[in-house]
């Protein structure tokens, strides 16, 4: 299955992935409209320290602890993509407790949010990958 892979060697810490993610998931038709005067809450996050940086987002594990742990059934695996039914999610954060990558974060509504590979937004293909200027984030079959 195609997954997002991150190679920290090429990460510039430019944080563009976060902004493209936030925009892609905003439902807005322009980045300015979506992100002007907004503190973004992206599904991909850069970790950086001492010249090293890399982006972290859902790894879409084959044995997803989050999905197995989800108390509501809001997290499910569809064609390998771990998706969240925000309507079902009650915000118990059991998934945050179990995700070994720390890739699941609360959304503004209290329900959790996570990378869904932009399958369900207007981007259609991972926006972070498209927006990465240095191929530090790639979307490929390995």
């Amino acid at each position, binding site marked *: 299955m195609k997954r997002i892979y991150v190679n920290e060697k090429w990460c510039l810490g*430019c*944080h*563009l992935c976060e902004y493209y993610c936030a925009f892609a998931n905003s439902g807005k038709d322009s980045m300015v409209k979506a992100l002007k005067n907004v503190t973004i809450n992206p599904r991909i996050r850069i970790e950086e320290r001492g010249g090293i940086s890399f982006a972290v987002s859902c790894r879409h594990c084959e044995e997803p602890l989050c999905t197995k742990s989800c108390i509501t059934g809001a997290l499910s695996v569809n064609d390998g993509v771990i998706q969240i039914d925000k309507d079902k999610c009650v915000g118990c954060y059991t998934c945050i407790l179990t995700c070994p990558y720390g890739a699941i974060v609360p959304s503004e509504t209290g329900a959790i949010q996570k990378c869904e590979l932009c399958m369900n937004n207007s981007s259609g293909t991972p926006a972070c990958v498209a927006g990465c*200027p240095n191929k*530090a984030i790639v979307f490929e079959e390995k």
Partner: protein
Amino acid sequence: MAIDFLYPEYEIKRDRDKCICCRVCERQCANEAHWYDAELEMMMCDSAKCVNCHRCVSLCPTRALKIVKTDHTFKENANWTGEHIAEIYRQAGTGGVLLSSMGNPKKYPIYWDKMLINASQVTNPPIDPLREPMETKVFLGAKPGKVEFNSKGEIKNNLPPQLKLEVPIMFSAMSYGSISYNAHESLARAAKELGTFYNTGEGGLHEDFYKYGANTIVQVASGRFGVHKDYLNAGAAIEIKMGQGAKPGIGGHLPGIKVREDISRTRMIPEGSDAISPAPHHDIYSIEDLRQLVYSLKEASDYKKPVIVKIAAVHNVAAIASGIARGGADIIAIDGYRGGTGAAPTRIRDNVGIPIELALAAVDQRLREEGIRNNVSIVVGGSIRSSADVVKAIALGADAVYIATSALMALGCHLCRSCQKGNCNWGIATQRPELVRRLNPDIGYKRLVNLVTAWNHEIKEIMGGMGINSIESLRGNRLMLRGIGLTEKELSILGIKHAGE
């Protein structure tokens, strides 16, 4: 702060309606021209620090940025231009030689743009490169004067060593040091994929790149940096650099700050020490000395590798080339005055040397008149900007071309001409690891391959139009060129007729 009379040449224009304060401009500007003011909750900038490299412009996700030439101006004066005034201020402030990089940007004639290419009509057919084979493979090296036969009457292979190029385009010399590791890796990988060559420049060959040896030309320059027996034998050919188009008659200087661990090892000089290439090779004070070096290198490489001699295009280039052709070189590389550099004194870069078009025409004609054109191949560089330039160069008489500035642009270079500062925001002309990282060779090499592949397609199209299906038949085929807006003298040096003739 003392007054320096220097004012920003460019202005950073930010569309505040579009700026979302993502700060990518701030994070990506090595010149620190942008910053975020938390109090004002706004991005701020200092245009004086901007070198107009467009890194911020290209990465700004909302297209909120542009860089414009400032309209701030000195009082109009056709003689004392703003550039002259600013340079005087600069030198009055520093007492130093002005430094610049990349090629001569001045308004001298560009002869490529004054030559037009022929096409077939009626009496002979154009050839469609999509239907028929169209050959751009080139062999560089001396050709045998006389075919020899063995006792059975079969042809003996007395061909001197040749470089086989799948495309008539090579990447010219850029040292590791002047450009980054990732830039070198991109060039090396691209050369391999394209079936052509890149050139180490005078900085030696990094141990990681020996594996690309079959597609590498190793250079021996006046500083002899990184030159040893294994190095000489690592590449497919050896190039002696006598001169460089951007700075004929001038040596090189890589500041110690750029001589970091890797470069120090590759160049075989102490870390942090300045790498100074002298103006002359101190063992070459005339042509006969050059001949000795040519043969020394041939000895060292067992006569298995062609030796290239690279010279800058200067006034008597034809005579120099003739001497070199008779001095044992297999290939002569001529670098025109628009050729790039990582750093050169501005006055030299902008005022010394001659256009490559004229140099090439003169050299090719001279060698033919002397009947020694086939003793050497001719490679020209120094601002080959497009496939049309390549076609014109070959029609004038080149066997192949060297590209460097075009290659760097494929890698992201925006020709801001600030290489000498070492803060290249595109990860090309820098050794700062956090900047070098910005050039991912996976992307870079592919862009180089794309560029050369695209050019090669275009070359084939143009050749097909002329009814030529092999690049050999284009070489020196000056009937395929016509001048436009050129004087009789220029036409005669170029050896072409005027359009309409």
